[in-house]
């Protein structure tokens, strides 16, 4: 503990030193250096992103397969959550395990508490460090304050580090310095749903801006459906409340400071990695500060943030309530320099320190934590006007720490944990060739690294807690290495004001990590029956996507896509049917997904319809006696959402959304069936 605090103090001193150095190196005169997304989008006529390389780029120039969802897309979707929007994006898998609980994956490998996805809000990583999962409803961001959601498919570890192996979802909110957003929205509907949010922006002179947002919902969850016994009793109705404040200050024409803070209190019924259902309470908070400076050495960015989450997990076992507590924390210090050398070369140097900790006597027998030092380099080379080559590499150095009381009889010692140290490189390379004004080819190759989560290393669940055997983490785990090769072809179809996008990809995951809940059964040297986390083999995936998106001046817009992914597991698990481990990606990924949508806007009216069909797949839940895993076949299904919007005045808009209007109940996972929802909304913009 003292060592960790000393490292944190050192990191803070380093940050302060770097901040002072950056300010001293600043040239004058200079200009605004943060990316003004709105101004650049207006200038170039398309969304702008920094999410692929760290360099501002037009979405069509980025060396990765990226989809950008705009605020207009979000508003017209009628969505109440971010996953509601994401389910209509090609290549994205969404599992709705309850009204307030969803897991999102990209190109398969999506299961309950999916750890393969990196999600950021304005660059702050927002995953829970216990399982590496995303609790979407606990994110401190309101839909009305989102400028765009960037969906980057495939590994992007060379920019973001460990865990960005399935893909990255980057949520960008409006900038309080450049954007003026004042909106209040109230929604209500079936399932006794009530939701409200307020977003307000204020400016202090011309040099500072503040954006505040708050919002939340309460509802009755979906009926438990096939859930029985303990799973049924453990589910409680969800509620959510989140606050966020975001400030930017233009200190000088060349130096900008920013700070943000958030707080949230959420109760959500979800599916947990063992295949059991329960209710979790999340009290989250974060604070961040940083500075960007346009210097003679490039754009220097420095930031530090801290995220905390107090998590209470409520399950029922044999009719007896089980309450588990965790305190999770992350400290991150990041520095980067983005510089354009001459006319053709852009370089980005990055340094990062990160310390994650999960303090849980219930789950880990104490405190399991890590400290990570990372260095990265990105080189973007405009070889010719039509060809750009980008290479990025990042090296992470991770050390594991454990303090607590390990489960007796497992054969593991504290020293086994405290000697874990690994160094892993991640790489991303891409070539973008604009063959003609209309045709773009993109070839990318990536090596991503999936670090075992803290509880995959350090879980200490005694026998009889979830099931008769013990579930124990394993300090000898190796990271999963994800190789991805992809070829994309985009064509602008000016005659029909559309863009055609295609992609084919191959992926291989080495050293697949199995949770203790899905690992091979064994006996510890003491004779203790136990499931240890393990590396269990490798998995391959091959897939393709084709989609078209467009709009015309008559007010119509449309989209259609088809995604295919075939995943094959080569692991020591599930050798004979039926499968007994959740590490069954081949069958737990829907192979075929078709998405289609059309919208129309005229005068004061907007009408939008989106539909998604996906093929069948296999999901899992524990049997009522908690003795084995129950495979559940999820049939292919079609879900469709429609929204009608009416602008009463320039400031007031009414909306009526029917989510899954085609079916009253739909089994999308092994959990409760998803119910039809009818939601009315009133938005007032000032």
């Amino acid at each position, binding site marked *: 503990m003292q060592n960790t605090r000393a490292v944190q103090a050192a990191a803070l001193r380093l940050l302060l030193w770097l901040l002072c150095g950056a300010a001293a190196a600043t040239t004058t005169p200079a*200009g605004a*250096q943060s990316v003004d997304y709105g101004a650049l989008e207006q200038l170039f006529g398309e969304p702008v992103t920094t999410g692929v390389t760290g360099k501002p780029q037009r979405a069509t120039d980025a060396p990765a397969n990226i989809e950008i969802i705009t605020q207009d897309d979000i508003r017209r979707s009628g969505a109440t959550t971010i996953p509601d929007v994401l389910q209509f994006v090609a290549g994205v898998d969404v599992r709705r395990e309850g009204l307030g609980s969803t897991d999102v994956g990209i190109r398969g490998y999506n299961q309950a508490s999916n750890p393969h996805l990196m999600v950021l809000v304005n660059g702050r990583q927002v995953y829970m460090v216990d399982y590496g999962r995303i609790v979407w409803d606990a994110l401190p961001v309101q839909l009305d304050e989102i400028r765009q959601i960037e969906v980057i498919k495939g590994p992007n570890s060379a920019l973001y580090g460990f865990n960005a192996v399935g893909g990255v979802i980057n949520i960008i909110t409006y900038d309080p310095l450049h954007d003026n957003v004042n909106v209040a929205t109230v929604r209500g509907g079936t399932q006794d749903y009530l939701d409200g949010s307020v977003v307000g922006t204020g400016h202090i002179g011309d040099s500072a801006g503040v954006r505040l947002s708050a919002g939340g919902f309460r509802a009755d969850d979906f009926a438990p459906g096939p859930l029985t016994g303990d799973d049924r009793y453990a589910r409680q109705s969800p509620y959510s409340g989140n606050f966020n404040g975001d400030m930017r200050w233009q200190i000088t024409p060349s130096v900008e400071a920013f700070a943000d803070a958030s707080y949230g209190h959420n109760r959500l019924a979800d599916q947990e990695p063992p295949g059991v259902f329960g209710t979790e309470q999340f009290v989250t908070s974060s604070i961040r500060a940083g500075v960007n400076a346009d210097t003679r050495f490039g754009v220097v960015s420095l930031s530090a943030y801290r995220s905390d989450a107090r998590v209470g997990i409520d399950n029922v076992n044999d009719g007896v309530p089980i309450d588990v507590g965790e305190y999770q924390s992350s400290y991150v210090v990041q520095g980067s320099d983005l510089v354009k050398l001459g006319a053709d070369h852009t370089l980005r140097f990055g340094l990062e320190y990160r310390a994650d900790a999960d303090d849980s006597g219930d789950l880990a027998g104490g405190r399991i934590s890590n400290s990570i030092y990372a260095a990265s380099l990105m080189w973007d080379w405009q070889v010719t006007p*039509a060809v750009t080559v980008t290479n990025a590499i990042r090296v992470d150095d991770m050390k594991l720490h454990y303090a607590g009381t390990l489960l007796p009889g497992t054969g593991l010692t504290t020293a086994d944990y405290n000697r874990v140290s690994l160094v892993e490189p991640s790489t991303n390379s891409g070539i973008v060739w604009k063959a003609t*004004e209309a045709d773009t080819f993109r070839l990318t190759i990536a090596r991503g690294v999936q670090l075992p989560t803290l509880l995959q290393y350090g879980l200490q669940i005694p026998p009889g807690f979830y099931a008769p055997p013990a579930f124990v983490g394993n300090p000898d785990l190796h990271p999963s290495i994800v190789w991805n090769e992809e070829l994309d072809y985009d064509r602008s179809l000016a005659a029909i004001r559309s863009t055609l996008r295609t992609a084919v990809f191959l992926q291989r995951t080495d050293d697949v990590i199995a949770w203790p809940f899905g690992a091979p059964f064994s006996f510890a040297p003491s004779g203790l029956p136990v499931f240890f986390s393990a590396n269990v083999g490798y998995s391959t995936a091959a897939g393709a996507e084709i989609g078209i998106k467009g709009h015309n001046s008559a007010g119509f817009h449309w989209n259609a896509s088809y995604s295919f992914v075939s995943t094959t597991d080569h692991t020591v698990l599930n050798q004979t049917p039926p499968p007994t481990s959740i590490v069954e990606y081949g069958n737990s990924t829907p192979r075929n997904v078709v998405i289609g949508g059309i919208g129309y806007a005229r005068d004061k009216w907007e009408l939008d319809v989106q539909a998604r069909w996906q093929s069948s797949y296999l999901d899992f839940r524990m049997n009522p006696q908690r003795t084995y895993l129950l495979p559940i076949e999820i049939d292919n299904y079609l879900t469709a959402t429609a929204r009608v919007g009416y602008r009463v005045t320039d400031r007031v808009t009414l909306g009526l959304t029917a989510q899954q209007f085609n079916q009253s109940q739909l089994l999308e996972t092994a959990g409760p069936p998803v119910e039809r929802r009818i939601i009315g909304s009133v938005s007032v913009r000032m």
Partner: protein
Amino acid sequence: MEWRPHAAARWQTAPLPGRRRGGTVALALLAWAALGGPAAAASLSARDVQVMGRALAFLQPPPASGELAVIYADGNAASKQDAEAIAAELGDGLHVGSAVLRPRLVASTAVAMEGFAVAIAATGANGPPLRAAIDAKRALCVTADLAAVEAGSCTMAIRSEPRVEIVVNHAAAVASGVEFVAAFRMMIREI
């Protein structure tokens, strides 16, 4: 107006299908214009001008309100006609953030006597003499003629269709002391 198709062709990275038909259409339009059609279009379209206004906001420091020189080649009727058309596109002025740049026609031989921070080079106005005068003014030169920017006689070329493209001659920008915000530099093509 022969320069316009030529300049447009220079933006292409590869031939576009159907260009022969496009050439036929262009000839027909030229014939129509010769027979008394509407006034010739400016080398910078209204959309180009809009893009230019947005791009100038990324100058550092951003331009203050003042005059925007629209420079034509002295004694060249086509050049002056183009400058007049550009000035008409600009109307009362080009809005750059809170600043307004009011257009003023300037003959290429009179550049040294005028005060401005931004200039548009009309067709036929680009060339070494203009470059020297602009450098002396520490001003930004903008044109639709990519070849002129490639040759270094003007600093920034703008095209808005079919896709916004902005090309800046790095050496020319340095010579005239023009600087852009770093994020903007990373999103345009510099030569």
